[in-house]
């Protein structure tokens, strides 16, 4: 065991404003950034606001920006930083601050409501569903999502463009459309709902220019761009011309070689 004193800058404030506060705090072997935030609460700043829950990378509550990069605090080991480095923790930039490291993530819950739910197939009762593993694999990858909203935070379509939030669901919820569209038994089409078309027309798929920032920050390693967004664009293409689909297919081919 070896301990050391680390220097931190933590954003404190509320919707009225705030700033970075300096802290010096003990760090022990094997600790993650969330451990340090808890130590700050227990010893120096009892009212420091932070969301967290499972502390095991499963619930997606403790999202923040660490040295400017969107990450889960519970899955960021202190050992990835140099001991001399000052570590900066700030709240997610794409969402309004509530207090300290806590932001109002209501945007995501509003978008979730705008995606039409799974449509069960008519005439197939409970217990009668038959699906093959290779057919559920694709949607299962997207259902690994823990809704940490790091992809929503980093996506440049909304990160610094509040005005785009109305029209754009963000990677997490476009991926939800893809997940339902790829569900082997989803019967949306039978009810006249064309999920591919709604991705483009109602959820702002066209804004995405496949820079893969979302994929890079995903703590679950979901290939959001390659496996959800690009296929959704390809499926939408016969209805609406999108030059990025062409570009996307080129990029993918190149990275595959």
């Amino acid at each position, binding site marked *: 065991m070896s301990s050391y004193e680390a220097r931190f800058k933590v954003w404190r404030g*509320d919707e009225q404003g705030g700033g970075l506060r300096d802290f010096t705090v003990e760090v*022990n*072997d*094997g*600790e*993650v950034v969330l*451990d340090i935030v808890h130590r700050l*609460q*227990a*010893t120096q700043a*009892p*009212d*420091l*606001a*932070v*969301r*967290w*829950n*499972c*502390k*095991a*990378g*499963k*619930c*997606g*509550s403790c999202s923040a920006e660490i040295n400017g990069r969107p990450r889960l605090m519970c*899955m960021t*080991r202190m050992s990835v930083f140099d001991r001399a480095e000052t570590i900066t923790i700030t709240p997610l930039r794409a969402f309004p601050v*509530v*207090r*300290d490291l*806590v932001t109002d*993530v209501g945007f995501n*819950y509003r978008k*979730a*409501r705008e995606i*039409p*739910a*799974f449509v*069960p197939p008519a005439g197939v009762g*409970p*217990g009668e*569903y*038959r*699906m*093959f*593993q290779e057919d*559920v694999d694709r*949607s*299962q990858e997207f*259902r*690994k999502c*823990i*809704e940490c909203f790091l992809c929503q935070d980093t996506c440049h379509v909304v990160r610094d463009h509040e005005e785009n939030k109305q029209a754009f669901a963000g990677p997490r919820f476009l991926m939800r459309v893809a997940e*339902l569209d790829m*569900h082997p038994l*989803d019967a949306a089409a039978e009810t006249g709902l064309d999920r591919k078309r709604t991705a483009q027309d109602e959820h702002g798929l066209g804004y995405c220019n496949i820079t893969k920032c979302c994929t890079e920050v995903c703590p679950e390693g979901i290939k959001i761009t390659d496996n959800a967004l690009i296929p959704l664009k390809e499926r939408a293409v016969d209805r609406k011309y999108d030059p990025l689909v062409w570009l996307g297919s080129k990029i993918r081919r190149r990275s595959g070689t």
Partner: protein
Amino acid sequence: MSVVDRQEWDVVVVGAGGAGLRAAIEARERGARTAVICKSLFGKAHTVMAEGGIAAAMANANPHDNWQVHFRDTLRGGKFLNQWRMAELHAQEAPDRVWELETWGALFDRTKDGRISQRNFGGHEYPRLAHVGDRTGLELIRTLQQKIVALQQEDFEETGAYDSRLKVFQECTVTRVLKEGERVSGVFAYERETGRFFVLEAPAVVVATGGIGKSFKVTSNSWEYTGDGHALALLAGAPLLNMEFVQFHPTGMVWPPSVKGILVTESVRGDGGVLRNSDGKRFMFDYVPDVFKEKYAESEEEGDRWYDDPDHNRRPPELLPRDEVARAINAEVKAGRGSPHGGVFLDVSTRMPAEVIRRRLPSMYHQFKELADVDITAEAMEVGPTCHYVMGGIAVESDTAAARGVPGLYAAGEVAGGMHGSNRLGGNSLSDLLVFGRRAGRHAAEYAQRLAGRRPPVDEAQVDTAAAEALRPFSAETAGEAGPPENPYALHQELQQTMNDLVGIIRREGEMEQALHRLAELRVRARRAGVEGHRQFNPGWHLALDLRNMLLVSECVARAALERTESRGGHTREDHPAMDRAWRNVNLLCALADPTGGLASTDPARGQIRLTRETTDPIRPDLLALFEKEELVKYLAEEELYE
């Protein structure tokens, strides 16, 4: 008089994990206007941490499985202390509850012929757990969350408002259940973001707040598990049942210290992982208790053959119920045969190809790689017991999930007692949430509908008292108590250490008495728990309020554990190491010592809790007939057998 926002609902569900969401769905589908209140964001509840699966006798993997076999396994796991009618309903209804999830969009792993795949787990005779890799809880919570959204979308179509019939109040905490006379009249709560108080008036309240693990230092539980629902029920006058039974999951991470306690799923063993001590020995073969001797392999060879040929071989003892495995690990470490960081070795690396491990146990692979620099495809994990689940809980009617003694109060999921007896089998929790969540939602809705037009009014004085209680930490210095304000974080740490050291996995009379004294001292100090800052999203304040609940529940655990002079399931007494048939049909009930709901008493001898014994209902003969006589004599007292 306090000025607080008020709303009227038919049913209020406290907690938004599997049980709470399933209850809310049922209540709303039966026409009750339903509100859900949860401490975290919607979709973050502790249920997401469930890994292995949902136990349901669908017989997809082994055609011999049926509800009777599941019922038998559940009673054996609980050492026959289970509220047997709950275990019966659970085993019968679990398959329907799983299949229903598919109609809401859940995607379980599949068998070759396209049905839901089922995996082996400790204590289950056949492969029975529906699963999605090792992230089954996430699939469950997301499916229920998305079903709620689907219902809200229907309501939006019809009424123009998503929240008109089913609303989620996220990041809000209930501190009191309000009553008019004996009956429930609503709840008092605060919003974490603003610190504002509000009252939801409702004739029916479903408590689905989960467990108590945050009273222990080493735990797999999240911050939410502060025993809120247990305490709310106690304070409302409902008794808690068999609180001495706390499950220590055998396999939590032990290193590094900051992750100590994080769960390592039982699927690791279900899929072939083995436990070894520092001599490299598979020690579990030495720890098969008499009651299970006929059911478990006697050699490594037989155990290994079982994975491919379960009809002609017996299962390896790594798959004994959790209480047995946890005690065995504890004993090995104590005997000096532990791993470098005080656990034992759990190895899959020599049992399965790396690619299979990564596919079947992706979260475990990720968790060890990220948090401990251990590659589980190449080396063994170090694991040890961690506080995981409380079998005890609110005493409920089996069929309706109604809390005893308080009309309008219901409980489902971990917060309810009885279902699992003295020890829960892995996989039986997620099915419990669904079966009894649905039942609680149904009966709460029906009760509320019966009271339509004559809802119990909310008593202003109770609202004022609840508001004053919640604000107390802001005036700790001027409250006229002796001594300076206390740091709630420090109090919490002392409480966790006390429970861990003195009422942990192995218990002794003297230590538990000592624990009760320390709890009394902590109670006095907790009245002076003070907070800095203001009411807006203030974690110090939230913790100061949660301390009341943790202290109440911890006292229940310690008192009941001291009373039960035997070892059974999740209650192991070093001074009474054997299971005693005379205790088989004894329930211990905890009630508040002060029937008016006050918490003044700080006398350690008397405390806040009054303990009573009751004799359980005899097990119905047709259910007893599912067992062989030779097995029953190991559990039941003579007079029970003759009846």
